[in-house]
């Protein structure tokens, strides 16, 4: 049975079907949550909260084709809620380094990844959410804006500013040449 059929069955109360379709998305939801929150335990909480809500509210999902996007929306909002609650409690989000296993990297890959990691840590969770949904999930920016309930202009602005932080981070690390400025001179 295709995903649409499984979602329709899940919507009618078939939990096994839900486990299949949600399970298929779980790994990437968890990864997206880790990227947004930079904290494994918080990511776990966010994904659990999102999927419990997804199961509970699934009968209200009108378009089964939107199931995955809907899961990402629930997960992203759960992430941002958790981040905000935590930020209020401790005044700032503690950013936990990511220690993912990997293999086959070149030294350049490692350097870039570490710099991206550092740049992401400098971003607010709301900004990271835009970056993650756009670059990791692959959503076009209008869809990102829609899922996050923000105007397209805000989504573009956040992405632009996030890329600016990345650029600064890379420049500071010497991975990039100095920024070009209008007129062809070097800043």
């Amino acid at each position, binding site marked *: 049975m295709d995903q649409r059929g499984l979602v329709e069955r899940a919507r009618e109360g078939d939990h096994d079907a*839900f486990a299949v379709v949600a399970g298929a998305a779980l790994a990437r939801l968890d990864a997206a949550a880790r*990227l947004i929150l930079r904290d494994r335990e918080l990511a776990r909480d966010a994904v659990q909260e999102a999927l419990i809500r997804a199961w509970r509210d699934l009968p*209200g999902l009108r378009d089964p084709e939107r199931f995955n996007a809907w899961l990402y929306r629930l997960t992203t909002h759960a992430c941002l809620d958790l981040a905000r609650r935590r930020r209020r409690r401790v005044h700032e989000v503690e950013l936990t380094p990511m220690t993912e296993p990997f293999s086959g990297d070149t030294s350049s890959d490692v350097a870039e990844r570490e710099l991206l990691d550092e740049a992401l840590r400098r971003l607010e969770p709301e900004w990271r959410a835009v*970056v993650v949904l756009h670059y990791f999930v692959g959503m076009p920016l209008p869809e990102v804006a829609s899922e996050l309930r923000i*105007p397209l202009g*805000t989504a573009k602005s956040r992405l632009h500013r996030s890329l600016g932080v990345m650029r600064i981070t890379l420049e500071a690390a010497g991975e990039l040449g100095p920024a070009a400025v209008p007129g062809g001179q070097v800043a």
Partner: protein
Amino acid sequence: MTSFQRFENRIPMLLEDLAVPSLPDYADDLFARTAATRQRAEWTFPERWLPMSTITTRLAAAPRIPWRLGVALALLVAAAIIGLIIAGSRVTRVPLPFGPASNGLIPYMSNGKLYVGDLASGKTRLLVDAAGDQGQPVFAPDGTRVAFVRLEDLNGSLTTNIYVIRPDGSGTVKIKSPEPIFDTDRVWFGWTPDSRHVAIIHAVNSVNQLDLFDASGNGSVQRISAAAGLTDLAFRPPDGREVLFRAAVRDSTGTISYGLYVMNADGSNVRALAQPAVPTETLDLTSATYTPDGKRIFFNRWTDDASAGDPGCCQLYVMNADGSDQHEFIQNTGTAWDGDAAVSPDGTRVAFWHNPNDRPSHGLFVVSADGKGPLIETGPALTSIQFKVWAPDSSKILMYPRDASNTPAYVLDPAGGPWTITPWTQDNDIDWQRLAPPA
């Protein structure tokens, strides 16, 4: 291509490396938890504007007896009465806050812009074309101004800001708040009956609070902490001297339930109209609304009725304003779900969603305010609940399906006749300006 552009192109791959997707070890535990969770019927989602955190995490203390509260709301009521008197003496007549009025403009959002539209002529006027995420326009009861929410960035976090504007597009005022109200903390906002204050329910340290902001934008704000823990409210017609609110109550075991309470407008004399009875059920006692004469209250009651074939949902209840004579409005337990009453401004009819068990769809039904007589279905069959507002003159109902987006709204005949659509497309925030009836 610059070196940064090359880097940008590699971001997707680098993100994959940073957080390698793998099935987490909590998958089994997670699905055990979802299996133990009941699904809702499709039309039963209360979170019209409520972000998830509001639904799932709002913890609150029981309403406290407001020993030291009151003067502020007493002044507010006095101001309301004086305001009404003054308003009545002005050259520009304004309607009373409750009851029949003439039909004015319809505020709506379309592609992030705020418009008002005239249903009779089809003409529209752009009010707000500013950058930012605007929404939820709602006219003051006197019809002179529109309040709307604009989400604005504050250090990367979205904050709620309330703006007020005249329907001709002039006089924009930003309502000042001493503390930022984060988007996810906003629960509800609306006008007080005197049209001079904007009431906002928002979470403060995880407890919902009611704040009354001066709509002139002078920065004055009053917190009505007697209503701490509230999730929504209604001012009692005809003068708003009493405020009905639903609040979360936590018992000694930490379990949350919801009760319906009423307090005097001065914050005194908080009393329960419906005690918390259904632990953790967020649908219970929702959508409480007064009849225009202030004598009765319609509200949703959760019922776990297995015979209906669903895990449970709502029945429409009604009671006297003092909490007496609570009963199901239309006896249909076991045969239909219904709820979300909207009483016509003239007080003669009630529109509500209704879903008989023997049909897959459901819709908007209208019945006499005493519950007698036929149920009249109006508008199309729906797959979800709807947002609705009566025309001030009670001749029409403006309706927007909950699960629609950027489409025209429906203009329904309460008598069940043919329906039309608005000449514009819009989002799901609906309201209707009240104007003074002809002299």
